[in-house]
């Protein structure tokens, strides 16, 4: 049968005064546990919690500095608490995970074009890694010298 004939035979869409029922499958709260990509996404988002943990520790350090040498010594001792060290080990891995995922996303977020051609992703991500190393070395030098 020709297509035109089929089109003509198709019943006219019916309109009702009621809103049609949408097809919305129910998604489990744990939808992100099934697949590595989803889990990675949630872990990446959760890294922000450890960013906040770092800021709180920095505020505690500044508060200790404000109160004088004894408070600073007390701060250094409290950072030696095994639970705090465990928290900081976990935090550090999450923060580095944030850094790596952030740099690897940068080429997709800001594609750089040179002469009408898009630069390869590595060319955009590599300077970020280079900057990371230089900045880290500079901060370590400032604090340790």
């Amino acid at each position: 049968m020709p297509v035109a004939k089929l089109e003509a035979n198709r019943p006219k869409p019916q309109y009702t005064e009621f809103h049609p029922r949408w097809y919305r499958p129910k998604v489990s709260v744990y939808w992100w546990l099934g697949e590595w990509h989803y889990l990675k996404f949630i872990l990446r988002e959760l890294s922000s919690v450890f960013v906040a943990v770092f800021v709180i520790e920095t505020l505690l350090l500044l508060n200790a500095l404000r109160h004088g040498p004894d408070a600073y010594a007390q701060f250094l001792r409290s950072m030696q608490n095994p639970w705090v060290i465990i928290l900081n080990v976990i935090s550090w891995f999450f923060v580095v995970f944030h850094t790596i995922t952030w740099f690897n996303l940068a080429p997709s977020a800001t594609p750089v074009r040179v002469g009408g051609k898009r630069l390869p992703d590595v060319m955009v991500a590599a300077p970020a890694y280079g900057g990371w190393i230089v900045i880290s070395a500079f901060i370590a030098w400032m604090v340790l010298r």
Partner: protein
Amino acid sequence: MTKHESNEPFFWILFSTGGMLAALFIPIHLLLFGLAFPLHWLAAPSYDQLMALVRMPLVRIYLFVLCALPLFHWAHRFRYTLYDGLKVKHLNELIFIFCYGGATLGSIIAAYLLWNLG
């Protein structure tokens, strides 16, 4: 065309700037003060050494920005983690206030502490 006004771009700029700062600066800070000094890999700087650093105006501005913007980065991500990840959509306003209120409070505390350092 309808005019679409939203403050989402503003929050997104805070999110992305804070994310960049967190990515570049936080790992080394945390490595030094969270692991290297407490575990005696390196000797912690003395009180006077740190105070000499913190007295420099540029270092104070740096520390303020390092606290404030990553907090807004956290606010944005944590908000959407609760929203999409854990699907708590009915508490949207409360989550917004908790996240951005927390980030604002943390920034004010950072400004206060840095302003009042000797």
